């Protein structure tokens, strides 16, 4: 079962600089071929740090644990190996399209850059760039290929970035908050595009986001992260129907919704996410949890245990499931 995963992460931990506090602590998850995985969490959850650390993109970070791409270990791998994977086998789309694009190079030049570096001829690489722009839905692709990033609108720029990420036909596409900076209608278009491309190419997709509505529509499986740990792992259909962790429930409850006018006020999670240097003992969520018992505070950090359709890190799971009906 696990050996079929295209990406297998085990006990991954990330520490920044000289601090001993772990921004990401011993997380484990897998990604199957062709699957779309959503990684959801708020700021400080470690969702971005974990993925960037796998690709060796974090500065001044100590990374421990294992992350195997098609059986090949990425943690601690040399730059040569990682360069061979980044862009070519694993594509990355980040939040701010403007920051990802070089303002002084044409869009076509940037899309074709990786291909040319792999030995393609300039002509063939450019042709492929035009083809990619068409695929991602940029109109007049053969002209726009010579345009500069600032000449595109936000949504179009993100499409260009997606084209860049897809250029070398990677096996995994990782998108970190790909639509946060975009308007709501464009968000849908960009997400539809990514999903469609993944389906066409048999590519796996990882979407990192804080937006649960994106998760609910575009993913197959979801992991919820809080303060550097995975607290729940579930499927798209089940997560919203039957959360396996009080934090997930809390997040779902606090979202305002159209048409839901029964409650005057939103149900909030009291308190704030912890600061890295001041992580609570035991379960990191316990200070904010209505189901917390003394075991939650005094025991070790709860591990992720398999439960029916997913995994949960809540030791009061039974109580939670009972009382949250």
């Amino acid at each position, binding site marked *: 079962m696990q050996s079929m995963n295209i990406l297998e992460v085990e006990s991954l931990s990330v520490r920044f600089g000289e601090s001993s506090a772990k921004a990401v602590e011993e997380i484990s998850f897998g990604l199957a071929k062709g699957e779309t995985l959503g990684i959801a969490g*708020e*700021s400080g959850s470690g969702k971005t740090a974990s993925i960037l650390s796998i690709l060796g993109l974090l500065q001044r970070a100590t990374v421990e644990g294992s992350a195997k791409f098609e059986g090949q270990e990425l943690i601690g791998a040399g730059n040569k190996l990682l360069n061979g994977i980044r862009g070519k086998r694993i594509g990355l789309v980040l939040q701010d399209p403007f920051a990802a694009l070089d303002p002084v190079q044409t869009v076509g030049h940037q899309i074709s850059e990786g291909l040319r570096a792999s030995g393609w001829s300039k002509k063939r690489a450019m042709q492929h760039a035009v083809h990619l722009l068409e695929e991602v839905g940029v109109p007049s692709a053969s002209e726009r290929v010579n345009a500069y990033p600032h000449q595109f609108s*936000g949504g179009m720029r993100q499409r260009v970035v997606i084209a860049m990420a897809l250029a070398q036909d990677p096996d995994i596409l990782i998108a970190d908050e790909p639509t946060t900076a975009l*308007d*709501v*209608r464009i*968000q*849908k278009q960009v997400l539809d595009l990514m999903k469609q491309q993944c389906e066409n190419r048999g590519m796996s997709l990882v979407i990192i986001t*804080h937006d*649960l*509505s*994106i998760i*609910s*529509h575009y993913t197959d499986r979801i992991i919820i992260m809080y303060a550097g740990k995975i607290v729940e792992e579930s499927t798209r259909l089940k997560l*919203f*129907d039957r959360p396996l962790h009080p934090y997930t429930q*809390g*997040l*779902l*409850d*606090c*979202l*305002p*919704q*159209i*048409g839901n*006018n029964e409650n*005057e*006020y*939103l*149900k*909030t*999670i009291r308190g*704030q*996410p912890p600061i890295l240097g001041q992580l609570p003992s035991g379960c990191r969520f316990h200070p904010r949890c209505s189901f917390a018992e003394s075991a939650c505070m005094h025991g070790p950090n709860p591990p992720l245990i398999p439960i029916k359709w997913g995994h949960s890190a809540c030791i009061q799971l039974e109580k939670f499931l009972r009382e949250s009906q």
Partner: protein
Amino acid sequence: MMAALVETRGLTKRFSQGFFSSQKTTALDDVSIFIEPGETVGLVGESGSGKSTLALSIARLLHVDSGQIFFDGDEITELTTSKMRPLRKELQFVFQDPYSSLNPRMSVKAIISEGIRLHRGLSNKTEIEDEIANILTTVGLDKDSMRKHPKEFSGGQRQRIAIARALAVEPKFLICDEPVSALDMSIQAQILNLLKTLKKERNISMLFISHDLAVINFLCDRAYIMKSGQIIEQGKVDKIFNSPKERYTQDLLSASLLVNAN
């Protein structure tokens, strides 16, 4: 019908494209809206719709090319800075970015007391400190916060400070420009609850800008939908969201992916 607290008539504003260009973009195109006392009105639009421009214009923080702005029955479109000053007490603004809307070099106490000294006629140090302690408690912050500087607070907490700053002068009208868009979901919910509570307890009228329809639905009574500088739809929030008339509004609604929660 009650006289509107805030009203705009035919507001138009154009921005020039660049130094050498004679081209102008129209940020506001003949915009007329109103907010009645006690109402919370939503302003919805995508980027470039003109919603922020409208908010800044109403607050007299931006000049308009033509049109009129009325506050509490008086026209304020052309008022000079000194004539506007007493009105600043009644019309307050909460900005989108909690990381840039507070003076990093001022303590929370100094930030909030500035308005109190200007508009509440208090000059006694103890009185002012008590007021600040009260308002901080109202927005859910510890009164020791007043000795700290903005950088010691998280985004959500800074936004509470910004709200405290606005409320400290006891305004009649509050303009909130995407005040929760930069915040995490769980913090967003806290701030939204806070705003709803304040709205009820203090009977403040509000103009609330957001791109998030669910948030508008939660907080607002009525809403205006803006596109390319124009109001293209308006009405009670229930009506707009249940039976939108315009195609654009329908698009916005369906694109606002809604969580399939229980």
